[in-house]
Structures are given as structure tokens and as C-alpha cells.
């Protein structure tokens, strides 16, 4: 077994306490090999000196009582907003976190509303009004068509007894509104029918 491999395994054992099944073999080798003894000794000494150097950095110091006083003061305050791009990123993240559920709820509400059958009550009234408005415009358009037709075509216009204009209240029963769409039927010279 080579010294290099033994040193690597032994250094692992010394540094990290990783005993392997061959530890005894390695130790036997080190006892006989001056080079490996030297290598292991230098590493051991380095580790010891390193601990001393690190302890020397910290042993003489203690945190002052002012640290806790500062923590008390800062803990009582709300978290300050961050500056720079980090703060902007965090703010954007928070905004997205709020906006996404709101948008989802709104989308769900709109979707479910469009999927509903026309209900009775308020929705029916709204539908009636819409139809009345549509009928009103149909009437206006049909009248315009009539105006533009030759005199002969106008003669063919048959007024319907079911013509119903919107009541002053703006409310028109549904059946009447449907009938009011069929205000005029105009026979144009080409034979087509314009509604």
C-alpha cells in the first residue's frame, strides 16, 4: 500500500474521526514510516495551532449589554422596508401574492355568472330591457331601410298590430318585446327580405 493513500486515509481519520476497517493497518505503517509520521504530525500540529488562532480571535470578547437594548428597541418597531432592487422585488412579490387570488376570484365570478341560466327576477328584467333596446334599434334600422326604398316598396309595408313602443317606464313584457322586433317586413325589388 502506498504512503500517499495511507496518508490520505489517516488524515481523514485524524481530521474527521472517520475510522475505517484498515485503521490498524495504517497505524502499523505509520509506526514504521518516518515520512508518514512527519506528515501526520504536521497535520496534527496545524489543527492545534488553527484552534488556538481561532480562539485567540474570540476569547477576549463578550457582547455588550447594549446589544440586547438595541434588539428590544428594534423588535418593538415594525420591520423597515428594504431599499433598492431587493425591496422592489419583495414589494412586487407581495403585490402578486395579493393580486393573483383576487384576479382568480374575479375570473371565477365572471365565469360562473356567464354560465348561469337566466334567472327570474332581476336578471329577467335586465334581459327584457335589453330586448326592448334591441327592438328599438331594429325598428329604427327598419324604418331607415324603408325610407331608402322606392315608393313602391314602401307600399308593401304592412304594419303589425303588435307594434309596441317602450312604455314610459322603460319596461316591456318579453312577448311584446319579441313581437316588436318584427315591426316591418320590407319586400325589396330584388325579391329579398330585409328584416
Amino acid at each position, binding site marked *: 500500500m502506498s504512503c500517499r493513500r495511507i496518508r490520505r486515509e*489517516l488524515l*481523514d*481519520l*485524524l*481530521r*474527521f*474521526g472517520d475510522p475505517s476497517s484498515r485503521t490498524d493497518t495504517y*497505524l502499523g505503517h*505509520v509506526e514504521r514510516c518516518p515520512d508518514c*509520521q*512527519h506528515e*501526520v*504530525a*504536521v*497535520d*496534527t*500540529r*496545524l*489543527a*492545534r*495551532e*488553527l*484552534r*488556538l*488562532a*481561532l*480562539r*485567540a*480571535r*474570540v*476569547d*477576549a*470578547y*463578550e*457582547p*455588550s449589554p*447594549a*446589544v*440586547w437594548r*438595541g*434588539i*428590544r428597541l*428594534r*423588535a*418593538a418597531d415594525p*420591520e423597515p422596508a428594504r431599499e433598492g432592487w431587493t425591496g422592489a422585488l419583495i414589494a412586487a412579490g407581495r403585490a402578486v401574492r395579493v393580486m393573483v387570488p383576487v384576479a382568480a376570484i374575479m375570473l371565477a365570478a365572471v365565469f360562473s355568472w356567464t354560465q348561469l341560466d337566466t334567472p327570474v327576477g332581476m336578471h329577467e328584467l335586465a334581459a327584457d330591457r335589453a330586448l326592448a333596446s334591441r327592438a328599438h334599434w331594429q325598428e329604427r334600422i327598419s324604418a331607415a331601410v324603408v325610407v331608402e326604398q322606392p315608393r313602391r316598396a314602401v307600399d308593401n309595408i304592412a304594419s303589425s298590430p303588435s307594434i309596441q313602443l317602450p312604455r314610459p317606464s322603460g319596461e316591456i313584457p318579453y312577448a311584446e318585446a319579441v313581437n316588436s322586433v318584427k315591426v316591418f317586413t320590407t319586400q325589396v325589388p330584388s325579391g329579398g327580405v330585409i328584416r
Partner: protein
Amino acid sequence: MQSGELDAFEEFFNTYKRPVYTTALAITRDPFLAEEILQDCFVKAYRVRHRLRRDVSPLPWLQRVTTNLCYSRIARRRAFVEPLTTLITNLVADLTSRPDQVVESREIIEVLQRGIDALPPKQQTAIILYYLHGYSLAEAAEIAVCNVGTMKSRLHYALKALRARLPEERRAPLPVALRVTER
């Protein structure tokens, strides 16, 4: 501690302030900056106190926050406190004069101090966690958010770099008998 009462949090602070401060001081070598970092770390802990787990020690988390704060502060300041080197050298002289301490030369300690400062942050953290705090490989790896093999590798390269800084004549073997059980 999770009750949110500052008085209860003071007990938490007193329990963990020393290891946190030690880490900050070992990395920054500036006692005042280390105190600032200690304060920042515990203010952060206070703000997330409801999320801290009760079933595990908060120390690995505190150490992780501390090392991150240290390196972000150092990167911002870009200035180490050089006069401290002299102070530390003197401290080491006092330390080596104690009868219970192994007498080591001031020069070697000084070389190692500079060597530690010159290490990349991850290797520096590894050295501090493992050799100063005495965390196990697994604990140090958890704090540094890496696996055990990576932690081992960082320590290996750190020691290699530090050893390369030793003067040739100081790489002689110890005069005392080899003790393989010493970590």
C-alpha cells in the same frame, strides 16, 4: 419563546448569544461589527419567532443567518480592521504564557490568522464551524447548507491552503509523541 414576549425572548437571546457572537467575531475580526451582526441576527429571529421550530435547536439556523450577515456586511464594507491583527498577536502571547496552554509561537499564529482571512468565505465558515465551535461534520454541513462530502472538501482545501502558508522550517513534526486520537 413563541409567545412573542420580549422578556421570554431575552432568555432565548442569553442562551444563544455567545456562539452567534463568536462566529461573527471569528469571521469579521471586528468586535463592534460582530455586535451589530449579533443584533441583526436576533432581531431577525424575533420577527420570525412564530416560524421557528420548537422540536429542533435554533442554533444551526442562527449560525446560518450569522454567516450570511457577516459575508454580506464584509462585502459591503470591503475593509478588514487591520490593527486587530496586532491586538490578536498580543492576545496570543498572553494565551501562550498560560501554563495550561501549549506554547506556540506568535509567528505561526499570526501566519494562520492571515491565512484564515485569505480563505474563500465558504472555507472560512467551514474552518470556524468545525475547528472553533467544534460542530460535527454533519452539523457544520447543515449550517452551511451543503452535504457532508462538500464540507469535508472545504475543510481539506482550507487546511491545504493554511499549511502552504507555514514556513518550511515550521513544518517539522511535533516533538511530542504522535496521538492519533486527537482531533
